[in-house]
């Protein structure tokens, strides 16, 4: 069994920054991460790319390259670091330490932590368009992950579809890397600029992000990649795998050849750990997802458990780093490891930095509203991929009296597969909310059960900690 003052889950911007800050204050820190090296999703494989594939740094862009210095600082911090390790259970009794169960190399390691920081970031919003389960259809994030970690890129003809900054960024990265993109299907409803206008003044505090956005739009415009705007009714078609995409754009029906279709409709907090421990969550109407309810300190409704980074609300890497720093300083103050006045000054600075980063969010939310059609889904389209449950079946469960996703899960098996509901949780809640004419807050979300990702029978049986 391992004991620590602070256990951090996730080695992305928030986790690394919190680890470095907490170490400076003298806390014992254990950082646990699923990847073999630090960086999270945004800086995935940064150390390997920085040392062996400089050309990748060029086309992945300067924001990606920035990760190398962050990883160096974290490595030098003296934090205990478990890479390639998966936290599959977190237990937070009312009194005493939290317990983390971690699968690593065929065994389960037990950790007792005085405090826990969840820095597990965001995941892509599942986009259940007809045909989304066909081979060849993936998310942009998944394709980007492969591009970062192995330099492999998807088969042509490649079609990108969706809305928001990552769509633009990935199109620009593909272009810079010489990866041919057959078409970009922009699903953003018309009037994005108009919707954004009221939020522009405040967003100017985040002018750096705005400039980045402008630059990406220009790169896309100059790339010669055909862009279809106001895309609606997107479908992936094919027998064994995706062969075509069909959609409407500007009132016209279009059908294109596609061997790969990459979807992206924004990112949402990864809810698995905060749901597992029963934190309070609230529905965010603008972003159409649940957020864990956090105090100014970054603490959840479960005392001693903090969330920093995109897992608490989407803000990007720099906001996440500052949130990680805030949480670490607050925890250090609780332990009396830093003196309050100087700690408070650092907290104020980090809060201001974070606020500047978050300033642009309302503008982005208004310009790129998350898809409203998901809650209206019906018919054969599979909602739960693991158990092949259709939108129609979810509506049927509602009609049979299922008040929320847990009874629907019992009726349909939706959410019971290996992904533990990650791919259908939001969709099922939205459909039930629509069917019952209620707000998602009143409908709720799946109770998440351990393991939050699959572990083997052998790993479960080999539990350490009887020491």
């Amino acid at each position, binding site marked *: 069994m391992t004991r620590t003052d602070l256990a951090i889950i996730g080695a992305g911007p928030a986790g690394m920054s919190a680890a470095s800050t907490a170490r400076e204050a003298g806390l014992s820190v254990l950082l646990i991460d699923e990847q073999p090296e630090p960086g999270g999703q945004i800086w995935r494989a940064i150390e390997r790319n920085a040392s062996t594939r400089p050309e990748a740094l060029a086309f992945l862009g300067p924001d990606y390259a920035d990760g190398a210095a962050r990883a160096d600082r974290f490595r030098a911090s003296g934090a205990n670091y478990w890479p390639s390790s998966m936290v599959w259970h977190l237990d937070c009794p009312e009194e005493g330490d939290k317990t983390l169960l971690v699968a690593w190399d065929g065994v389960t390691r037990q950790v007792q932590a005085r405090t826990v920081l969840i820095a597990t970031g965001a995941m892509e919003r599942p986009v259940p368009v007809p045909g989304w389960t066909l081979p060849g259809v993936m998310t942009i994030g998944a394709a980007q992950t492969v591009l970062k970690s192995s330099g492999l890129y998807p088969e042509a003809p490649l079609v990108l579809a969706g809305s928001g900054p990552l769509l633009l960024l990935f199109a620009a990265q593909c272009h810079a890397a010489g990866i041919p993109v057959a078409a970009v299907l922009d699903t953003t409803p018309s009037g994005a600029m108009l919707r954004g206008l009221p939020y522009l003044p405040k967003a100017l505090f985040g002018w750096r992000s705005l400039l980045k956005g402008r630059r990406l739009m220009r790169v896309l415009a100059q790339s010669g990649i055909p862009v279809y705007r106001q895309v609606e009714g997107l479908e992936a078609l094919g027998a064994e795998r995706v062969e075509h995409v069909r959609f409407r754009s500007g009132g016209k029906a279009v059908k294109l050849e596609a061997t790969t279709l990459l979807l992206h409709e924004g990112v949402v907090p990864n809810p698995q750990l905060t749901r597992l421990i029963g934190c309070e969550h609230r529905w965010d109407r603008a972003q159409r997802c649940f957020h864990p309810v956090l105090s100014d300190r970054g603490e959840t409704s479960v005392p001693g458990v903090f969330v920093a980074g995109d897992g608490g609300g989407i803000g990007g890497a720099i906001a996440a780093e500052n949130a990680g720093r805030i949480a670490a300083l607050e925890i250090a103050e609780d332990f009396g490891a830093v003196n309050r006045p100087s700690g408070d000054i650092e907290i104020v600075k980090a809060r201001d930095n974070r606020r500047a980063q978050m300033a642009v969010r309302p503008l982005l939310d208004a310009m790129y509203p998350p898809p409203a059609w998901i809650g209206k889904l019906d018919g054969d389209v599979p909602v739960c991929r693991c158990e092949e449950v259709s939108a129609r079946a979810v509506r049927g469960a509602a009609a*049979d009296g299922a008040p929320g996703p847990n009874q629907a899960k*019992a*009726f349909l098996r939706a959410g*019971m597969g290996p992904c533990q509901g990650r791919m259908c949780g939001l969709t099922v809640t939205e459909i039930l909310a629509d069917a019952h004419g209620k707000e998602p807050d009143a409908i709720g979300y799946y109770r998440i059960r351990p393991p939050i990702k699959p*572990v083997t*029978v052998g790993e479960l049986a080999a539990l350490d900690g009887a020491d």
Partner: protein
Amino acid sequence: MARSSDVIVVGGGLVGAAVAYGLAREGASVTILDEGDVAFRASRGNFGLVWVQGKGDGLPDYADWTRRSKDLYQGFADGMLEHNGCDIELKQEGGLSLCLGEDDYSETEASIHRMHNQPGVGENDRRMIGADDVREMVPIIGPEVSGASYSPHDGHVNPLYLLRSLHAAAQQLGARYVSGAKTLSIAKDGDGFRTETEAGIFRSGKLVIAAGIANKWLAPMVGLDIPVRPDRGHILITERMQPVLPTLLVNARQTADGTINFGNSHEEAGYDTSINPAKLAEIAGSIVRYFPILKNVRVVRTWSALRVMAPDGFPIYRESETAPGAFSISCHSGVTLAAAHALDLAPSILNGGFNDRFAAFSPERFHVSPAA
């Protein structure tokens, strides 16, 4: 405004839904009052066995009642299909309880002899079989398996489909299902009952309390003392696999979907439904001993749920003597007994003579003073 029906069933789990379905079959107007989406819900956490062997050690009536439910099951499943129910994946092809090592084998054998010696235990088909015969039935067992007890009467269902089917069939027969209606108080009201819930007030002629653990605090409102307690069990579910468990085991069953469920653990943990890692490790450790080949299979889900346990482990059924027309129904075998609850117990609620019929399951058995 209070809405009224012939019978209110408090509890929408397997016991309540089975009784409600049975009442609705008899033509009664029924209202099921259930809690919201999140509750203790043993009915969503159980294992799905329709299990006969070993039950009734100490109470022959329970052995008979279990066997009766088992015998009714196929007709019960077919009956629900006629009323908008779904296929509950019923299979009654016999089951095994594996033994590890010689001591385990001789203890199981002794329990069979003990039950044979109790008059009226109608369970004579249970028998011991050796490791080689077990291997014929379950080829993946490991070298530590020393044998098993076998009964041809054991079977299983998909418990979630059973719950869904009961709800659908009861509603098709006119039962009304109200969720978010946690019961707050029950009172006599003229010649009927008035039930106050989080979703309003409901009136009925008769009242059935089938609320699992909550019978402990609801039944006293009609003058009954039901000393049930939570008994925590853990279940592990694997990823889907090719069929590797052709025979049902008391602690492992492969579902129609291909997942394997492991369970059969017991623990005193109060009302805590969190996971005990040591218990999971114990179950996983025993899986590796029973079936070494499954060591690298992935577990996709685990949970714990609370069995509704009487001090002696047997059902408690009783009509109130101070408030006739109010019934308390508790047991931990909501799946196994569902057929008997629907087709036999429910009609007795309407037809009278309930306490005579189920005298063996009266809570009076816990109140016998040592001097008596």
